[in-house]
């Protein structure tokens, strides 16, 4: 193997490693979402019993660290999972691939998660 193709092969393997990590993140976040969605739905069912008022909600969420932690993990999982999923769809349908695209998807996932975390923090603080 010449130096050039050996270098190309090294780069391909490094890229494949990154892609494997994205895949692993999507599966782990899918598992987290599976749990989080159930907890979220149960919380909704519990919260709406006997009507819903802003004061009631804030009473439960203000200063509740466990609540904030749960929704932070939920938002991170949803943001990353959705973005990696859209990355796969974009690669297969419009051929959008490559390191630049991957970094952009990662950024989109984190920004999406950021919106969720900001909303949760608004109810916490």
């Amino acid at each position, binding site marked *: 193997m010449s130096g050039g193709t050996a270098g190309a092969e090294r780069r391909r393997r490094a890229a494949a*490693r990154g*892609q494997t990590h994205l895949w692993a993140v999507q599966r782990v976040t899918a598992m987290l979402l599976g749990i989080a969605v159930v907890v979220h739905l149960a919380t909704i069912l519990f919260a709406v019993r006997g009507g819903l008022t802003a004061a009631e909600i804030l009473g439960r969420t203000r200063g509740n660290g466990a609540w904030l932690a749960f929704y932070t993990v939920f938002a991170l999982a949803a943001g990353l999972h959705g973005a990696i999923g859209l990355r796969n769809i974009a*690669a297969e349908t419009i051929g959008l691939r490559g390191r630049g695209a991957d970094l952009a998807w990662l950024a989109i996932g984190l920004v999406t998660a950021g919106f969720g975390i900001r909303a949760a923090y608004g109810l916490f603080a």
Partner: protein
Amino acid sequence: MAEPASLKVSVWRGGEDGSFARFEVPARANQTVLDVVTTIQREFDPSLAYRFACRVGMCGSCAMTVNGRARWTCRTHVRKVVGEDGALELRPLANLPVIRDLVADLAPFFDKWQRARGVFQPKDAPDGAVPEDFAVVPPASGARQEADAGIECIGCAVCYASCDVVAWNPDYLGPAALNRAWTLVNDVRDGARQDRLDAVAGDAGCHSCHSTQSCTERCPKNLDPSSAIAGLKRTLFWDTLLGRR
């Protein structure tokens, strides 16, 4: 199913931009799709190109697209695929370049077996020499059973032609090459495990598979490449998570 008196056969002629030629072929009892193609070539058009060798489902060379679906033609009875109208449409295998008529170019398919490190690499003799002693491999061991499950592949490319991900991503190694890699990952005599796992990881490898199982559904040998690919993903997942790679 009522048997039609004659078959109306549309056969792909030419290369990628070819077109169908139509033939009316007498229907015979128990004939296979390959028999029909041979009849056309012998009695109607000797210039028709197609490929076969063993005619008994061992060599993997006769696969074509039959009425829209990839099949081994030497072991596909006409009666199984033709309706009462007797219409039979034959194309070369999908997802591969067309050489001419019913002959697809399998070079990309087998190049990917190479890329997936589909070659056995003896552990005791990395230079390819014959090892000193026999390896003892208990047939009932889990790894050997995983390997045995995928070992009977005849390289027909039916799975490859049936996989949407191959169509969407020309780099994707495809079900047969990944199935082959999984048999070797489970071969305790093989010494190239890490290298092979590296070769099948990522978007061009097992991680692009959506587990839709067209490959498993269509494999004429009833192999299960989809599960083999799931095995690769599982192995890579734990190796990655536990920092073994």
